[in-house]
C-alpha cells in the first residue's frame, strides 16, 4: 500500500513538473530533419552536422538531427518534399506569408501545440506581448519559432561613424544637430582637405533617410513607414521631406557629400576613409571594426572612429529614429504540415527558449567556448583569438549559433563581446540611443486580399521615390518642383498605399 502511494505521489510530482517546463533531454527521443540555408562561416571549417554545437544540441535535447541545406529556399519550399522543420524568412519567402502557408496546407498551425509541447517559448511570448503579436498571423495563429532579439543593443547595429581623431585635432565635439554636422563636414573639407567629407554609397544614402539618421532635425521621423500615435505615415510623402532634401542638396552642392554616391562601391568608400578623402561614413558595427583593422595594418597614425547618434533639432534632444530592427527579424522555423513529428519538432524547437538552450545557442559549450566570469558568459580565447587563425565567426560557427539565426533569443553579451574593439560597442550604444521604439512599425503582414495591390503600388512607388531622391540631390530635378512631386505620388496612389499599411497595423495592434 505504502509503495503504491509513494509511486502515485512521485508520478503526480512528475506530471506537475512537466506542466511547468519542458524537460530535456526528451525521454522518448526521436529523429527530426531540419532544413536551413548554409552559413559560410561554418562551412569554411566543417559541415554543420559535424560541429560540436550540433553534437551538443542533439545530446542536450535527446533528438537525432538530420540536417539539410537547400541552395534555393523558395524552390525547396515549392517542391513540396521538405524536412520536418524548415528555417527561413517565411513571411518573405512564401508568397502571402505565414498565414497563407498555413491555409495552403504547407506548414502546420502550432497554436494548439504550444502549451503542451513548447511551454518555454509560449511563456516568453506571453511575457512580451509585442513580440507575441509579431510572430503571430493577423488572426492570432502561431506557426513559427522566431529568431528574437532580447536586448536593445542587438536591435541597432549600424549608423554614421566619423574620424574622432580629426574631431579632437579640430577641437570639435561629436555633432548632434544638423548645423553642427554641417560645420564638422566644412571643417573636414577646409582644414583636413577631405574632398568628399561624407562618403555614402547609394544604398547607404537611402538608409540614412529611411532609418531617420538625418531627418529628425526637420521634424521627420524617417522617410519610410512610421507611426505617430497609431497613425501611419510614409516619410517620402511628407511635406517636411522637402527640408531634408534641401539639406542634402546643400551638402552635395558644397562638395561635402561624395558626388559619386550613385556609382561608388564599398571598397572605394573604405579607401576614402583611410586616405583622408572622407571623414564620415555610413557603416555597421562590424564595418567600424574592419576600418580600424585596415588602418592599423596600413600604419595610418591616430586613425580612430566614433559613432554619432541620429541628428536632432536641438542639442540635448534624443533622435526619433535609427537603424532600429525591432525584436524580430523575420527569420523563423516552421514545421511542415506533412511532418509526422509535429509534437517532437515543437519540443525540439522549444529548447532554444529555455535557460540551458539559451546558453548553448548564444555561447556554446561551457569550458570550451565560454566560461562564466562573474555571472557573465564570457567567450574563451578559442573563440575570440583562435589559435588556428579562424575568424571570430568561424570559431563561433563550431560551437554556437549566436552570430547567425535560429530559433532562440539572442543575448546582448554576444554582440558586446563579438566586437573586438571598444569603439564598436560604444558606437552601437550611441546609435541605439533614440526613441525608435515609439515610432517603429513592427513586421505587420498585409492582409491577403490586399497583398497584390500593395505589391504593385510598392514597386511603382518605391521606384519613383528613389529615382526622384537621386534626381533632387544631384540637381537634375529642381526642388521647386517638389509640389509636383507630391502630386505625382498622389496620382500613383500613395493614399491607398498608406491606407493598406494602416489597416495591417491596426489589425496588429488590435490582436
Amino acid at each position, binding site marked *: 500500500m505504502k509503495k503504491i502511494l509513494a509511486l502515485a505521489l512521485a508520478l503526480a510530482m512528475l506530471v506537475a513538473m512537466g506542466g511547468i517546463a519542458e524537460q530535456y533531454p526528451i525521454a522518448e527521443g526521436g529523429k527530426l530533419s531540419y532544413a536551413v540555408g548554409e552559413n559560410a562561416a561554418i562551412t569554411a571549417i566543417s559541415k554543420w552536422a559535424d560541429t560540436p554545437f550540433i553534437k551538443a544540441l542533439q545530446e542536450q535535447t535527446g533528438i537525432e538531427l538530420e540536417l539539410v541545406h537547400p541552395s534555393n529556399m523558395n524552390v525547396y519550399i515549392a517542391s513540396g518534399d521538405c524536412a520536418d522543420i524548415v528555417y527561413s524568412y517565411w513571411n518573405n519567402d512564401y508568397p502571402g506569408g505565414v498565414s497563407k*502557408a498555413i491555409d495552403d496546407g504547407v506548414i502546420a498551425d502550432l497554436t494548439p501545440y504550444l502549451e503542451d509541447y513548447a511551454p518555454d517559448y509560449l511563456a516568453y511570448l506571453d511575457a512580451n506581448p509585442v513580440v507575441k503579436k509579431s510572430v503571430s498571423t493577423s488572426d492570432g495563429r502561431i506557426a513559427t519559432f522566431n529568431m528574437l532579439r532580447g536586448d536593445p543593443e542587438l536591435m541597432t547595429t549600424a549608423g554614421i561613424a566619423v574620424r574622432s581623431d580629426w574631431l579632437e585635432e579640430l577641437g570639435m565635439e561629436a555633432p548632434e544637430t544638423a548645423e553642427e554636422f554641417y560645420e564638422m563636414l566644412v571643417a573636414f573639407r577646409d582644414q583636413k582637405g577631405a574632398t568628399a567629407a561624407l562618403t555614402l554609397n547609394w544604398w547607404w544614402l537611402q538608409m540614412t533617410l529611411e532609418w531617420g539618421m538625418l531627418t529628425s532635425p526637420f521634424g521627420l521621423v524617417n522617410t519610410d513607414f512610421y507611426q505617430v500615435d497609431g497613425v501611419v505615415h510614409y516619410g517620402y510623402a511628407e511635406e517636411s521631406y522637402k527640408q531634408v532634401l534641401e539639406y542634402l542638396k546643400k551638402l552635395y552642392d558644397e562638395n561635402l557629400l561624395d558626388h559619386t554616391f550613385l556609382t561608388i562601391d564599398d571598397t572605394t568608400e573604405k579607401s576614402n576613409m583611410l586616405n583622408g578623402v572622407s571623414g564620415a561614413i555610413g557603416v555597421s558595427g562590424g564595418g567600424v571594426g574592419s576600418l580600424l583593422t585596415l588602418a592599423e595594418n596600413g600604419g595610418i597614425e591616430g586613425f580612430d572612429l566614433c559613432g554619432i547618434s541620429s541628428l536632432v533639432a536641438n542639442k540635448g534632444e534624443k533622435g526619433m529614429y535609427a537603424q532600429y530592427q525591432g525584436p524580430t527579424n523575420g527569420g523563423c522555423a516552421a514545421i511542415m504540415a506533412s511532418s509526422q513529428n509535429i509534437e517532437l519538432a515543437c519540443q525540439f524547437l522549444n529548447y532554444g527558449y529555455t535557460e540551458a538552450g539559451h546558453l548553448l545557442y548564444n555561447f556554446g559549450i561551457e569550458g570550451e567556448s565560454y566560461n562564466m566570469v562573474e555571472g557573465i558568459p564570457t567567450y574563451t580565447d578559442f573563440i575570440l583569438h583562435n589559435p588556428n587563425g579562424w575568424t571570430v565567426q568561424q570559431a563561433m560557427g563550431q560551437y554556437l549559433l549566436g552570430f547567425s539565426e535560429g530559433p532562440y533569443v539572442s543575448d546582448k553579451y554576444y554582440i558586446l563581446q563579438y566586437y573586438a574593439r571598444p569603439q564598436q560597442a560604444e558606437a552601437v550604444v550611441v546609435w541605439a540611443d533614440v526613441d525608435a521604439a515609439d515610432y517603429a512599425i513592427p513586421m505587420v503582414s498585409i492582409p491577403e486580399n490586399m497583398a497584390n495591390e500593395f505589391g504593385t503600388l510598392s514597386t511603382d512607388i518605391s521606384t519613383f521615390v528613389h529615382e526622384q531622391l537621386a534626381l533632387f540631390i544631384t540637381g537634375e530635378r529642381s526642388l521647386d518642383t517638389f509640389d509636383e512631386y507630391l502630386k505625382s505620388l498622389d496620382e500613383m496612389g500613395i493614399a491607398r498605399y498608406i491606407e493598406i499599411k494602416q489597416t495591417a497595423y491596426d489589425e496588429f495592434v488590435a490582436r
Partner: protein
Amino acid sequence: MLGRQLHTGMIVSLKKDIRRNWDAYLLLVPAIVFFALFCYKPMYGVIIAFKDYSPGRGITGSKWVGLMEFQSFFSSVYFGRLLRNTLTISLTSLVLGFPTPIIFALLLNEVRHKPFKRLVQTITYMPHFVSLVVICALIRIFTAENGIVVNLLSIFGFEKVALLSKSKYFVPVYVISGIWQNFGWDSIIYISAFTAIDPSLYEAAIIDGANRWQQTIHVTLPGIKDTIIILLILRIGSIMNVGHEKIILLYNSGILETSDVISTFVYRKGLTNLQWSFSSAVGLFNSVINFVIVLLFNKISRKVSEIGLW
C-alpha cells in the same frame, strides 16, 4: 536545305527519306526527346500566368484570375517607359551590333598573313568567355569619374563625370560594351560561312576584272546572304528579351529613366512580393510579342528574298 529541295521539285516522301537516311534521323531522336520533355511539356505550366499561383496549392490547386496579372503589368505607371527602354536598348544593340561581326569577318577575310589572322581571332573572341560580373565591374571602373574612358573622352571635350550616373550615357555604355564583348565570337559563324562559297565564283569575278572590293560586294556578301538573314530573323525573335543581369549590375536609381527595362522591373517586383504568376504573365507577354514579330519578319523575308526560317 529542305527548302531548296522542294524548290527544285525534288519532293521526297518522308518514309523513303527515313529508310535512306535512318542514321541521320536516329541522331535526331535525342534532340527531339529533349525538346519534347524539357521545352514542350513544361509549356503547360504557362497557365500560372492566368492563376493566382501559390506553391503550396500547386498549379491545379491555384485559383483562376484571368488577365489580372497582365492588367497589373499594363496599368503600372512605368509600363510605357519600360517598353520604350526595352525596345530602345534592343533595337540599338541590333542596329549597331548586328553588322559589326559581319564587317569584322569581311575585313578579317582580307588578311593574308595567317598567323596574324589567327591571333586577331583569338583575341577578339576571348571577351565572350569572361564572366558578365567581371565585365560589369570593369565597365564601372573604366567609366567612373577618373576612369580611363572618361579621361580619354575629356580630351575631346566631354564632361568629366561618371558615365553611369547620367541617364543619357547608359544606352551607349551598355550597347558598346556589349558589342565589344561579343563581336569576335559572333563573327565566327560568318567566317565559316565564307568557306562555303564556291571558289570558282571568285575566279569568274577576277576574270571579269573585279577588284577585292567588288569581289566582296558581288561574291562574298551574296554568298553569306542566307546566313545573315536567318541569324537576323533569330535575333529579331528575341527583341523583347533584354536580360536583367547586365542592367542590374550597371544601373542605379538615378538613371532609371533609360535603364529600367521590363525584366529589371519584374525582378524588383519579384523581390518585394515573390510574384510567380506576375513574372509568368510578363514572360508570356514578351514571348507572344517576340513570336508575332518573328512570324512577321519571316513572311517579309520570304517575300523579299525567298529565304526564311520556315
